[in-house]
């Protein structure tokens, strides 16, 4: 390069070019980068829109076989896709869980009513799975609409920070959306999902002890029941949501009810659930700890914790590690293969920390889609 050339008549051109270059990039460098970010967001949005539209179509195809025309189903689903729930006011936190529980019950009722009307020929089990299908479509629609909102707003206002945030979050949003998108086929076909490992463990354990679908006590709380089984001179109340329809029920309130019904007799509460694994951890790894393993918005977990605290009952959790794709998609073999280890840990916990004659609540938390009693 000719750096250090002697000055001459044309040196002003060189200086001008140099300063123009510096000026352009210092003034418009950010604009060029914003343009690149916007293009990347746009590409992500196209992908999100594709997933949203395909999941909507899957939902329509799934619903239309239960008695209504495709046109009816499509218009009703479009009306329902942006159904919302307003969270209770938290400025006065007293009684917030009760209010939240009430709202969630209302939401569930509206969902069931909507699905029953849209699929009049569906059985109760099919209605539950259809609800899940609709929920997945709703999630994908919501992700698309939120990202599009910030994309348009960022473009309108030229807000660099808004655009930058979405561009940076886009890979994670796409990963979550992809997990939901892959899961919709599982829900529409009624296949078991990774989140259902909790109820599956319960039934396998109960069956080992001689329980059958006939010994299952139904509806101790909404869509939840239990198998009373005997294990090593102890009574285990093995509790789970009623399948094989897609429901999680209200297991927290079921635990509370069982504690109240067996006042002073429950020695331990053991919860079994799927938990999100950290990157690097192996799929289907079994971990245990203290507390209630239940991933609800609050009321269910609170019910378990309160029942345990008020009655001085030991509470422990066994979790099976999964990623998002496994938790909401078809259950992978690695997760099924963890069953013997989970059951072994349950047995160890019961034998070590309870004594003959005690009653134990064993609660399997999760979605029971595709898992029979």
């Amino acid at each position: 390069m000719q750096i250090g050339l002697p000055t001459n008549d044309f040196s002003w051109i060189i200086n001008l070019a140099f300063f123009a270059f510096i000026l352009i990039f210092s003034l418009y460098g950010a604009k060029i980068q914003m343009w690149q970010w916007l293009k990347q967001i746009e590409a992500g949005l196209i992908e999100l829109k594709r997933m949203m539209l395909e999941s909507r179509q899957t939902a329509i195809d799934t619903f239309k076989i239960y008695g209504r025309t495709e046109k009816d189903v499509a218009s009703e689903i479009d009306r329902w896709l942006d159904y919302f729930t307003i969270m209770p006011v938290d400025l006065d936190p007293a009684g917030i869980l009760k209010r939240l529980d009430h709202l969630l019950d209302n939401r569930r009722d509206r969902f069931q009513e909507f699905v029953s009307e849209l699929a009049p020929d569906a059985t109760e089990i099919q209605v539950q799975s259809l609800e899940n299908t609709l929920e997945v479509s709703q999630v994908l629609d919501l992700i698309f609409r939120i990202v599009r909102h910030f994309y348009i707003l960022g473009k309108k206002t030229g807000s660099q920070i808004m655009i930058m945030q979405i561009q940076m979050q886009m890979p994670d949003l796409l990963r979550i959306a992809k997990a939901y998108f892959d899961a919709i086929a599982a829900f529409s076909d009624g296949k078991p999902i990774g989140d259902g490992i909790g109820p599956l463990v319960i039934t396998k354990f109960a069956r080992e002890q001689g329980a059958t679908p006939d010994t299952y006590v139904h509806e101790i709380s909404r869509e939840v029941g239990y198998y009373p089984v005997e294990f090593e001179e102890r009574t285990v109340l093995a509790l789970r949501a009623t399948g094989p329809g897609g429901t999680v029920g209200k297991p927290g309130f079921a635990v509370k009810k069982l504690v109240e019904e067996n006042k002073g007799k429950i020695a331990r509460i053991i919860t079994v659930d799927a938990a999100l694994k950290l990157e690097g951890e192996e799929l289907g790894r079994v971990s245990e700890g203290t507390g209630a393993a239940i991933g609800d918005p609050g009321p269910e977990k609170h019910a378990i914790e309160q029942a345990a605290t008020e009655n001085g009952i030991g509470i422990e959790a066994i979790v099976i590690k999964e990623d998002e794709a496994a938790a909401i998609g078809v259950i992978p073999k690695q997760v099924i293969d963890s069953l013997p280890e989970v059951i072994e840990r349950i047995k160890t916990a019961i034998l070590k920390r309870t004594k003959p004659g005690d009653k134990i609540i064993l609660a399997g938390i999760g979605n029971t889609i595709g898992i029979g009693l």
Partner: protein
Amino acid sequence: MGWMSRILGVIMAGSGGVLLIFGMDPTTGIFSYVYFFLGLLMMSMGFALITGGRQQQREQKPPPPTVTEIRCDNRECTFKEIRDFEKGDYILKPVDVPCPKCGGRMTVEGIYIVREEPEQTITI
């Protein structure tokens, strides 16, 4: 970003590179600075066109098939059948067909996918 803009990006980046090298040539004379910066500008614009927008779609593998595992209820019988999932199957569903080995009852013991875990590149 379509193929056209990518091709344009490659051409611009290439031309920019040529200009840049040309600008570094001591024989170019007084305009070497101009060629050099123009080359840099064209290269950066070219690369922006190549990398901007949608990343090239990687060929996506179809999801692994869901299989149904049926086992004989008789603990002494080792019969096991794995077949494709059929709508209506659920785990612990009693199967109508008797076990072909011992004639006992059979149950759906598992419905799952066999997911290939990506090879760990980080070995920590």
